[in-house]
């Protein structure tokens, strides 16, 4: 946002807009665009993920060997990674939206923002680690 446009904002929301673009680097419309894209994207990859349970009898598909085999397939590993990233971004932003409406103090809003960003990064890092380790079996 340019300093000019900030000056032009003649209402109370002015400071809020500035404050939030400071912390999240994104405008709300950009965040929500990401939210919708990741939501629809998740729908798609989760559908593939669920359908993969049907290529063999359901029980068998969840046996240890078969699960590890899935991870070893690089395309499937990438699919799992994209599910992880999409759901983490979408889910935690969804949680942010829900929590933001509960209270309207700046401390709460800043806390919620930090919480969801940290949780998002944490979950993605931990999940990615799992995928890499499981995939590593085939290499090693």
């Amino acid at each position, binding site marked *: 946002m340019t300093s000019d446009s900030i000056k032009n*904002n003649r209402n109370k*929301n002015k400071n*809020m807009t500035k404050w939030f673009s400071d912390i999240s680097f994104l405008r*709300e*419309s950009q965040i*929500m*665009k990401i939210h919708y894209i990741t939501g629809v994207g998740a729908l798609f990859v989760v559908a593939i993920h669920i359908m993969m349970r049907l290529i063999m009898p359901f029980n068998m598909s969840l046996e240890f060997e078969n699960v590890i085999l899935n991870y070893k397939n690089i395309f499937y590993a990438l699919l799992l990674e994209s599910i992880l990233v999409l759901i983490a971004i979408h889910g935690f932003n969804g949680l942010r*939206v829900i929590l933001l409406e*509960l209270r*309207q103090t700046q401390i709460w809003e800043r806390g919620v923002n930090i919480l969801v960003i940290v949780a998002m990064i944490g979950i993605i890092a931990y999940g990615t680690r799992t995928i890499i380790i499981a995939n590593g079996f085939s290499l090693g």
Partner: protein
Amino acid sequence: MKIFKKDKTKKITNERSLEIERERSNKSTSSSSSSNQKSKKLRIFRINAVQNPNDVPHFDEFQVPVKRWTTVLDALLDAKSYQDSSIGIRYSCRMASCGSCGMKINGIPRLACYTKISDLDTNTITCEPLPNFPYIRDLVTDFSQFFAHHRSVMPFIQNKKADIPDVNELSEYEQSPQDLDKFLQFSYCIKCGLCYSACPTVATDLKFPGPQALSQAYRYYADSRDSDKSNRLKVIDTSHGIWRCHFAGSCSNVCPKGVDPALGIQLLRSHLLGISNSEKKIAKLQDRSNNNSYREELEEEEEEEEK
């Protein structure tokens, strides 16, 4: 806003009111149009939040005469005139154009002057203040927050470059009927606050501008005479702004003026997401301040494409 715990029902039975009732029932039995004149029970929410912030709300009941065309406002004024002059009501035009008599009638936000008792089809009419507004007294609520939200979207045309030759002379500010149609329904809003009181997001998030302000943001955004488009979008594109609408649609259900605030919100969102590019071009073409330069730009683009 207060959450009330007790529903203390007090029946107004002072002598004067009984007397009036007797008079009325005598009249109605003696008159030939006795079927026209019935009486119904009016339950009115009572509180005096300003004088006594700890006041516990209760309902008072009044028996009021009702004809085929009696509105809830008529009934309230009847009760106020003949039974209890302390009933707090706000009204002015009595014809659904000032927007001051909004209240919850039988559980739904409506205009008292625009709600006929015969249409309600119940023997008891319950009047409560509008939800999502702080109480002042009885059916009168505090609209400060609501109006502040309305003001925040800059509900006026802004166009410094408008070619009005002489501001002291009457001059025409042209707008084609097609351009008018883009926002006409939204300009019928009377700021009654019914949509605001029906909105589930407003109920939890006081910083949310609400359907009224957001649909007015669209009304001025879509006005071809307005030029400050990007600033308009910026104001509502905040963490408590337009994105906190969750498509409940209650606003459009209760609007007494046929405005569809939910539609305005979705249209504005499509502009914010940039999925209505062609509309933007049309809007720019129609924006008189940029008219010539943009048209030239477009022509240049077209020429380049041809090459």
